[in-house]
């Protein structure tokens, strides 16, 4: 997957778009894109990371809501989609609460591109997998840059959920899970 020379791979581009929609800072975007080695360890960085992560959660919630409302999740997998949407809502609420505690108003949800497919099938599951993979990748990239203990701890608890979601969707698609 070409990710050098300014050409972003699909996953990074996805993360970048979601982070941009959430108003992520230039520094966080640069870090996610690999153009910045490390972020300053300060309150502003934590808030920038929180906002970027919040954007990904909004994106995931919007995507699951779209898939569920239009009955696009294949039979037998709907319960997982409901569970994962609920988990992302919990992640969102935690991040909003941490931002509030720091005196920052959290960004609201952005407009999520609707799922192109009109019927349930693997393509929809692949789209759901893509947001989970992007979220895991972003959290793992950013987690070492988090300064405050509460946020670092919550990020740890969140990223293990993303890993679970990703594993379930990979299994549903017949991809290697281990």
């Amino acid at each position, binding site marked *: 997957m070409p990710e050098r020379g300014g050409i972003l791979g699909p996953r990074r581009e996805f993360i970048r778009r979601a982070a941009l929609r959430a108003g992520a800072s230039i520094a966080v975007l640069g870090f996610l894109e690999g153009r910045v080695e490390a972020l300053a360890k300060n309150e502003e960085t934590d808030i920038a990371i929180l906002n970027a992560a919040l954007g990904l959660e909004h994106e995931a919630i919007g995507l699951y809501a779209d898939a569920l409302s239009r009955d696009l999740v294949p039979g037998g997998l709907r319960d997982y989609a409901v569970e994962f949407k609920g988990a992302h809502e919990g992640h969102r609420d*935690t991040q909003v609460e941490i931002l509030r505690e720091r005196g920052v108003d959290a960004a609201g949800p952005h407009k999520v591109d609707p799922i192109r497919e009109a019927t349930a099938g693997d393509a929809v599951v692949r789209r759901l997998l893509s947001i989970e993979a992007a979220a895991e990748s972003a959290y793992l990239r950013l987690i070492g840059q988090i300064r*405050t203990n509460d946020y670092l701890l919550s990020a740890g608890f969140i990223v293990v959920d993303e890993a*679970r979601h990703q594993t379930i969707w990979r299994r549903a698609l017949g991809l290697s899970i281990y």
Partner: protein
Amino acid sequence: MTADHGATRRDLLSRGAALAAGVTTISALPRFALARDYATRRESLDELDRLAAVSVLRLEAVRGSRAEADLLVSRFLTALRKHADTRGDMRRRFALPRSVDPALPPEGIDPDLAGLRQSLDDLMIAYAESLPVFGDATAVARLAVDMVEVSKLRTVIDLWVESETA
């Protein structure tokens, strides 16, 4: 990492009890409010070593009772050995002594998948709880990668249990 200003984690989460209640019980997030605080890097690494050793014992027990588990268990054990190497690197990075042999449960571990799943869950949660005590971006990033892998191992066991009960 710095000490948090203002409200503590538990204040935050106790204020938002409804928040955790809205998340399914399978999510790890509700346990965030009850997370253990490690006082030192050494304490967290010792606990991770102990919990990983329990998972290894449980994996061996499952392999001993289910021939079809051999390949999966081998892969899991390889992953856990790699994680042990990471923790060894962390001890060297922070000039910490090697772990003492962890106190393991007595003989006769049940080879059940539920017990294995629980041991991996305990290990995964201990990783998450450990991250703040390291105060080092490289250490946190490396341990987080292993934590995510343990989450995937745990989910594979969940799927195995589901397939057996279906």
